[in-house]
């Protein structure tokens, strides 16, 4: 057990180092959400007047939306990294050592989780700087971050599994471009649920991105509905565990194909 934990740490360290030593990539990952915050914040400023947002400042409403959307968009590219490692021969090198398969995948999960958390904190702080108000306090913000990390884990693990199975950049790019905006707009990320068409609201109920959205927003509100928060977070956790399990299983089918 302790070997698996330390191996996971070695793998995490390795990936964090790649992130830290490629400053351009690191800066883009951390700055892009800021652009969303600025663009959407100005573009949709007036929609808050429609009502149903639970606040009079659109920025209050937008910050959790951008946190969750960024968690999705940065993690869904995880498979590209895995693809690089396959093509470079790094994955094969690790697979012929005694390192545990779970540690290989969990190193990815922990690394992506840490980056997602850092990215989320930056967005929340920038929102604060821009005058956003978080009535749920630090606890509420923490739950939003946990929910985004879980959401990121789901899509990061699925992206890794996809990378190992199809081994084509084009497939990952295609699926990501196809999914990102529909998943984001079929949720309450930018629009109050009461302003959404009924059918969209129903679809959103099945959208994991919306689960993270609803859990985070509720926890950050003045009077959190803990049943909703726990229900949605629990569902995210269950899905994350399933996705990681699936991605570890994918090693077997990868090994059949090499």
């Amino acid at each position, binding site marked *: 057990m302790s070997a698996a934990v*330390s*191996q996971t740490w070695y793998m995490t360290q*390795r990936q964090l180092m790649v992130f830290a030593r490629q400053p351009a990539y690191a800066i883009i990952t951390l700055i892009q959400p800021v652009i969303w915050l600025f663009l959407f914040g100005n573009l949709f400023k007036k929609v808050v007047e429609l009502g149903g947002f639970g606040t009079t400042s659109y920025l209050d409403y937008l910050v959790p939306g951008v946190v969750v959307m960024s968690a999705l968009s940065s993690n869904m590219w995880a498979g590209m990294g895995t693809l690089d490692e396959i093509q470079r*021969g790094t994955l*094969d090198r690790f*697979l*012929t050592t*005694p390192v545990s398969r779970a540690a290989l995948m969990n190193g990815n999960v922990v690394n992506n989780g840490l980056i997602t958390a850092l990215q989320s904190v930056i967005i929340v702080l920038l929102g604060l700087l821009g005058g956003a108000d978080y009535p749920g306090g630090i606890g509420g913000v923490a739950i939003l971050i946990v929910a985004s990390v879980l959401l990121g884990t789901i899509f990061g693990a699925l992206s890794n599994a996809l990378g190992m199975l199809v081994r084509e950049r084009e497939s990952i790019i295609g699926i990501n471009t196809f999914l990102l905006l529909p998943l984001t707009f079929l949720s309450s990320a930018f629009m109050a649920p009461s302003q959404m068409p009924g059918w969209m609201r129903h679809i959103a109920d099945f959208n994991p991105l919306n689960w993270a959205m609803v859990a985070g927003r509720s926890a950050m509100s003045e009077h959190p509905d803990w049943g909703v928060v726990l229900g949605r977070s629990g569902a995210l956790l269950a899905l994350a565990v399933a996705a990681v399990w699936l991605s570890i299983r994918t090693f077997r089918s990868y090994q059949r194909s*090499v």
Partner: protein
Amino acid sequence: MSSTRAPAVEARQLIKTYPGDVTALSGMDVTVETGTVFGLLGPNGAGKSTTVKILTTLARPDSGTATVAGHDVLRHPDRVRRAIGVVAQNSGADPVATGRENLQLQGRLYGLKGAGLNRRVDELLDRFKLADAARRPVKGYSGGMRRRLDVALGLVHRPEVLFLDEPTTGLDPEARTAMWDEIARLAGDEGLTILLTTHYLEEADRLAERIAIVDRGRVVVEGTPDALKGELRGDAVHVELREALGDAGRTLLNGALTGLPGVHEALFDGRRVSVRADDGAAAMPALLGVLERAGVGVAAATVARPSLDDVYLRYAGRRYAEAEAEGAENLVLAGGVR
């Protein structure tokens, strides 16, 4: 001494097909005695890399059995992994990390740590002349340096069996010679067994104590380089004809050539005729005379000591370069970068 110990590698009747009906292995048998250097020689697509992938627990065969360092690769892959070092064609050292960091991580994966790990890493950096570059990111390394780091990575935990998959492919001649020296030195390490694959005849001849020639997914002949070459007694006389012969012409010419004194065998391959003779130079005039009487125009003729290429022609039934070209073509047809 090696005969009293179990073989380091023993593979029996390995069969492996890839989707799209591509047969990679069609009954591969390999036995490598402990403490020896064994070379799998063959063109691209012959099945060398697939064999290595199975023996190093990366891929699973459709059928057949294999043990490495006494452990079954299918039943106890974890035990095999502890006993082997693998230097693949792309070893994938982390380009962003330094040489030292790459070695340290590799050591940690085998459970090395602390002062023991640092000592081992320093030792390998020295041995592979990477000490000066140890603190630089690998992406700045030359091809030769990278390859030396790859080999060092495979040795970090002092494996019993080392797999070298085409260790010098892509290196410039100078770096290749340096790598050969390094591998020859490794072979002297006590008890280390090395299985290397190569598509360079010269490399197998120079490094391996025993060679298996692989063609179309199985071994066609095996032995020491000298024994394989020695089976082809005498000299090889290669004659380049002006035009290729028909079947009837071949049969006729075959009879006339092998009827000459001191001539053992004639192999036809397109416009090329290879004749085995006790004394090539002495047989040459008579040989050319036969061809002239038969009305066959000669473009060129050379006498050479038999090479592994001749061995290859004899056992695989085609020239090495042709098999190479066909292997490359098959890879393209299979759509496959594997």
